[in-house]
């Protein structure tokens, strides 16, 4: 049975229409292949690696596990929409400065996960930081520089208060 789905998604504040898709397509696939938003990465397609992390109604979820056509009533934010500025966010800037980006494949997912963490909990403990990114696999950095980047962001936010 063929199913040509037509629906609209709210992504990064814009209404975007999806045409001629198949019912089982994941949000990850639709973002990348149909909506021209390749910032969200895909590796495992089974929720294990976190490289596809997006915000759905403010919660960090794996886009590969969201059936795109069921997300019609939700607000989706991808790494492309994490800021409306053309500048990097403070989290992104800290990742660059602390050398937390090597191959960069995990980076978009981590950036979204860290924005989500600091939005909910501006002063996380070391344990809370570890737990918040436990669903984001990075095979390059060994995480030390990622933690340094999160801590640098927290420090700079505290200093600018």
């Amino acid at each position, binding site marked *: 049975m063929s199913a040509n*789905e037509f629906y609209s998604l709210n992504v990064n504040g814009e209404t975007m229409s999806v045409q001629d898709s198949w019912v089982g397509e994941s949000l990850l696939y639709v973002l990348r292949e149909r909506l021209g938003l390749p910032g969200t990465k895909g590796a495992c397609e089974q929720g294990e690696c976190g490289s596809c992390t997006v915000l759905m109604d403010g919660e960090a979820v794996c886009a590969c596990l969201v*059936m795109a056509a069921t997300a019609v009533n939700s607000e989706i934010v991808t790494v492309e929409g994490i800021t409306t500025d053309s500048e990097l966010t403070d989290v992104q800037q800290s990742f660059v400065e602390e050398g937390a980006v090597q191959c960069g494949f995990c980076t978009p997912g981590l950036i979204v996960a860290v924005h989500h963490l600091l939005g909910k909990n501006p002063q996380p403990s070391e344990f809370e930081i570890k737990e918040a990114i436990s669903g984001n696999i990075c095979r390059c950095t060994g995480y030390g520089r990622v933690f340094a980047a999160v801590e640098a962001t927290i420090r700079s936010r505290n200093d600018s208060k």
Partner: protein
Amino acid sequence: MSVIVAKELTTALTALREHGDARLIQGGTDLMVEINFNHVKPTTMISLRDIKSLRMIRTDTPGIMSIGSGVPYSVIEGEPVLTAIPALAQAARTVGSPQIRAAGSLGGNLGTCSPAGDTLPVMFALDASIHLSAIDSSRVVSIHDFMTGVKRSVRQHDEIITAIDFPIINGWQGYSKVGVRNAMVISVASACLVADHENADVRIALGSVGPTIIRCRAAESWLKTTLDLSTRSTISLDVANEFGRRAAEESSPIDDHRSTAQYRRHAISVLASRLLRKAYQ
């Protein structure tokens, strides 16, 4: 339309009755993996994600906390569940990663009905009841009757799991799980132990060591006849280990890609013994 995004339960129930091929989806953390890897080719999907009534936690019946089938683990981990049903909050906290817990639900854990489902031993130890609704009927089934085998349950095609009732226990409860690391791990063996001070008894249910969750009724009654649990005094290592040995005897684990039967049996004896001593510390 082959994807129905229901906002009301009745919309979903009507669509489910109409479409014999329809699959339900809540958080998608089990089903989307199947779809992404072509194990399931959906034709008609009914999304429960936007049904608010499935996301409620109710306490209107005294002595019972009723958790909607769509409440995500990220909510179950915290209050009010943490205080009322600590073992369930602990089990929820061990599921996957924050991203998985933001989406996954009890309805999905029951819908999949895997013996490794982390919340199922808690339901078995607490004698939880499952609410099932069809468009023209509804029923409440004990968890002991609900799960019938590996990924098998008594749920009929036209039924939606709406809520799970957990009795609030006066006593101690805990959930422990053995896996290869902390985050993102499907259990190799798990156990939920409940020490009910009102009834002066102990209940224990095991996960990942049989085709269904296993309640160790023989070990439970051995303990009750061996000790006077109403004194709530500490339990000796010897008694705890014997309890663990008996619990492991009631398990029926297999060798698979995650572990061996022998290791699983050993893990159960240790988990059961430790949980029991903790309960009466």
